[in-house]
């Protein structure tokens, strides 16, 4: 009795679409998310190629051109020591975007393993990690970031670390919650039954199923982190002068709001655009990765 013969042929009305391809197809159907993605890519390119694009040196002072309004020579005008604002906004993208992404990277790097451990191991591990994140979440985001940045000392790198640590509890919670839900699935028990070691179950079986939610949360948190970096720079705890970041530019602009408003408008607009784009992309990804939506 042959097994092949005892079973009928398998029909294949099936598509060859991986989850990634499916998500991309659904994302493409959402114009707002696509535009946001394009703008984000544009901003990143701008930051990467800043030395080639910027029309002037962003830190070269010129006391003959102090606080000039936008003109053909200086499209966005100049600041209080005669530096070209367009050049500073372009260079500032480096600090602001990298602060946003690197701090979220730090938060993911710390938060996801802790969340996986808390969710999968449970018991004391979970109690310890959860109480600690609860305590951190009890402090307002920005206050905690400011306290940490002040403790670490003013520099862009320290600001990123401070923001990253402050954003960590969000990812611990999300990962823990998702892990708790996924670990009761049959396929996790199947993975155990097949003889997977614990770390492999966590990394190969649970993590890929948590990843979509993490991706969405990460894009949303990048937006928060960009604002946090701007706030820290505004307070003098982020990017240090004379190097530009959008937040530090706003910081120096506040004293001239009435007579040189352009100094605040452009970096403010840059923050606004990048934050809204990351938010829109996050929303689009959430819909695209949700298996329940068509």
């Amino acid at each position: 009795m042959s097994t092949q013969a005892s079973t009928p042929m398998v029909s294949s009305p099936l598509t060859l679409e991986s989850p990634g391809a499916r998500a991309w197809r659904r994302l493409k159907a959402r114009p707002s998310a696509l535009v946001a993605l394009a703008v984000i890519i544009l901003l990143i390119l701008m930051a990467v190629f800043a030395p080639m694009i910027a029309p002037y040196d962003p830190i070269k002072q010129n006391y003959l051109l102090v606080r000039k309004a936008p003109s053909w020579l200086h499209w966005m005008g100049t600041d209080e020591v005669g530096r070209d604002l367009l050049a500073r906004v372009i260079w500032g993208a480096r600090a602001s975007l990298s602060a946003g992404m690197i701090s979220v990277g730090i938060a993911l790097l710390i938060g996801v393993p802790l969340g996986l451990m808390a969710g999968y191991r449970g018991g004391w591990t979970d109690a310890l990690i959860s109480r600690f994140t609860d305590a951190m979440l009890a402090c307002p985001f920005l206050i905690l970031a400011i306290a940490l940045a002040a403790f670490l000392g003013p520099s862009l790198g320290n600001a990123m670390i401070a923001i990253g640590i402050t954003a960590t509890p969000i990812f611990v919670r999300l990962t823990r919650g998702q892990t708790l839900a996924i670990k009761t699935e049959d396929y996790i028990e199947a993975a155990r039954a097949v003889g997977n070691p614990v770390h492999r179950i966590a990394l190969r079986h649970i993590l890929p199923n948590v990843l979509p939610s993490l991706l969405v949360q990460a894009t949303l948190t990048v937006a928060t982190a960009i604002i946090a970096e701007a706030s820290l720079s505004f307070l003098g705890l982020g990017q240090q002068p004379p190097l530009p970041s959008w937040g530090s530019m706003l910081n120096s602009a506040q004293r001239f709001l009435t007579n040189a408003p352009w100094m605040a408008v452009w970096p403010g607009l840059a923050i606004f655009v990048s934050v809204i784009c990351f938010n829109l992309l996050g929303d689009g990804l959430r819909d695209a990765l949700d298996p329940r939506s068509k």
Partner: protein
Amino acid sequence: MTQHPVAPLLKVEGLGKSFVAKRNFFGRPTATVRAVDGIDLELKPRETLAIVGESGCGKSTLGRLILRLIEPSQGQVTFLENDMLALDPTALRDMRRWAQLIFQDPFASLNPRMTVGDLLSEPLMLHNIVPETERTARVGKLLQQVGLKPEHAGRYPHEFSGGQRQRIAIARAIAVEPQLIVCDEPVSALDVSIRAQVLNLLKDLQAQLGLSYIFISHDLSVVRHIADRVAVMYLGRIVETGPVTDVFDHPRHPYTRALLDAIPVPTPHRMKEIVPLEGDVPSPLNPPSGCHFQTRCPFVVARCAQERPPMTLKTETHSVACWQHQSIPDDHQARGKVDYDPRLERLMQAFNPT
């Protein structure tokens, strides 16, 4: 691995599991549920033992206790002459090579983010069944063994139907070349025609690979088709066990009789002869004293409420846990002809060319 023709492959003694149902303010347990309560079993190589019972009687838990996917509270599991409960985590993982599990719901038991190829090569990799270079070929062979095509390896589970997914789950179980497979209601989620195909597949694989099955099911007609022996469970305990023909044709325990009587058959007059069971299954939180079945048993006597009836040998292989098994009249007339599901039988024939 040497075969022991007489020695049992699996021996379960006094196996039990209590779950904490309620805790007080300080986290101390105040109520426990004995989901599985002192089970003894034996399984010989190449044998199929069916475990039947209502939902919630603890049969799925028993399957997981045997594989130690749930830690037992008491008892002993000896598998391939190893004390399963004494194994450290590493040794237990190695032991998993010899005992596998097939789940009821093929939509939940396959990781949606792994391709079929990944799903099947994982056990090959974990237990080093074949060298890395031969894994793709082995995955193709496994897929053919369960009636799928090697090309299917690149696809994701959501692209398959329920029956096909169950085949993939079976392929994953046989990938490690196990001796024992615990089948937890493997065909309950499938429709009748697919059910027959998958049952045939399981039978064929057993013949080819020399597998032993523990077949958990609530469907007695399926059990009749696939099992050699059957154990009937009620509220965490085994009440009757023996060869399928003996138990089905000459049931001794009142509960087994009630179960068999509950099978719908196209014989209108028979309805008059059977006495349906009264009441519901008691809460496992607060099970009846003595024999768990005493609250619903038509043959109940005073002793049933006082002492738990021991397993008594009726014949050499057929045993029953009932105080009254001597005095209960031997057989109901209509029983014995009804357990074969003629429709399932026809379907199995139709899908089986030999």
